[in-house]
């Protein structure tokens, strides 16, 4: 139990997926202009990351390793993610319309979000067990959500301030992300999971 606690803390704070591992930067900068889209995108990432990690873990263990086809891992994983995203979109539209309304527009963007593929591949490279992988995916997604929401709230306040012309838009967001990353860097001293 203690181990899982540490795993969650590591994934959210110490090795934050965006701020320490540089994954998922395009949606991080692209959807952080308003709080509403940030929350939606973050939730969609948590949802898809957990499902994609579960499916790819099972596939890797029982299909790819069994058939000695580990080298096509990249192709299989990205296909699984692309199909999963389409499937989730259709499923939510039919079964849970409110959730679809909230996440719908973000789902197509997720296919090329490197955080999802990244989480799935990290789980394989670190030899996580099934439960570990699921917990790691959920916690990493949560870390993404946290970083996105913090950046969005800062950027919303930034609207009313005077930013030098050359820094408007993405440059100032990157500098802010750097400062956030510096703050998260302080957690590194706490040690980490494996």
């Amino acid at each position, binding site marked *: 139990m203690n181990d899982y606690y540490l795993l969650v803390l590591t994934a959210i704070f110490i090795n934050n997926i965006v701020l320490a591992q540089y994954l998922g930067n395009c949606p991080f900068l692209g959807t952080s202009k308003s709080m509403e889209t940030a929350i939606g995108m973050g939730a969609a990432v948590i949802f898809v990351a957990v499902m994609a990690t579960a499916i790819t873990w099972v596939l890797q263990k029982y299909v790819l390793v069994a058939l000695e086809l580990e080298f096509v891992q990249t192709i299989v994983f990205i296909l699984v993610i692309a*199909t999963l995203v389409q499937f989730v979109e259709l499923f939510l539209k039919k079964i849970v319309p409110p959730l679809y309304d909230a996440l719908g527009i973000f789902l197509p963007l997720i296919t090329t979000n490197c955080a999802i593929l990244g989480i799935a591949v990290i789980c394989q490279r670190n030899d996580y067990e099934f439960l570990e992988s699921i917990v790691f995916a959920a916690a990493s997604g949560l870390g993404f959500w946290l970083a996105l929401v913090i950046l969005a709230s800062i950027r919303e306040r930034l609207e009313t301030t005077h930013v030098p012309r050359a820094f408007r838009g993405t440059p100032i967001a990157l500098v802010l992300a750097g400062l956030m990353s510096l703050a998260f860097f302080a957690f590194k001293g706490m040690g980490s999971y494996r």
Partner: protein
Amino acid sequence: MREIAKMMWKEFSKGLWKDLPPFRLVLGLCPVLAVTKTAGNGLGMGCSVIFVLTLSNLTISMVHKLIPSKVRIVCFIVIIATLVVAVELLMQAFAYPLYQRLGIFVPLIVVNCIILGRAEAFASRNPVHLSVADALGMGLGFTLSLTFLGALREIFGYGTLFGRHCMGADFQPFAFMVEAPGAFVCLGIILATMNALTVWIDKRASLKIEKKRRRQILNTLPLPGADTSKRKRLPQ
């Protein structure tokens, strides 16, 4: 023939300044931030991206007519993923230390938005030779940007360039630059510099046009003595 070469040059050169991938089109930022701890890493990543981008643009511009448009994105992803696997295997065979340093970002070339972006926006609409020119230009621009950012971070963060010391003996490495925060701040400052530079260049260009226009107006005005070329210089 000259026409074709001219068009190819146009597509090639736009990737070097006008649409410079990571700085102008802010796409595919993850590898840009992650692998630019040193200039060598940036160069290695850039070369793998050139390889994948050129071959994917080539393949996609050849086969796009055969692909139904509804499933085109998935087909593009499969083509790109196949090429990425080829890069992975090639790197394992010939550049294993680089493969280890780039780590998870080699398989993640698949989701680099630049590659899918060029496939969708350019290669699926243009003939083969233009697509290849576009890919080479974009890839070269990407590589140069990555190497530049990597060199900047390496020089200040380690005091070396491509592994050689270059800052003198009493240089204190600025560790901030090679960690994650430095990557973000550095990229932010480069983007801002690019913005400022663009504004400055535009201003200069418009000033030049304005001056030219004024001169033309002055020349056409029927002012007495406006014909300056024939006016005799007054004795002093």
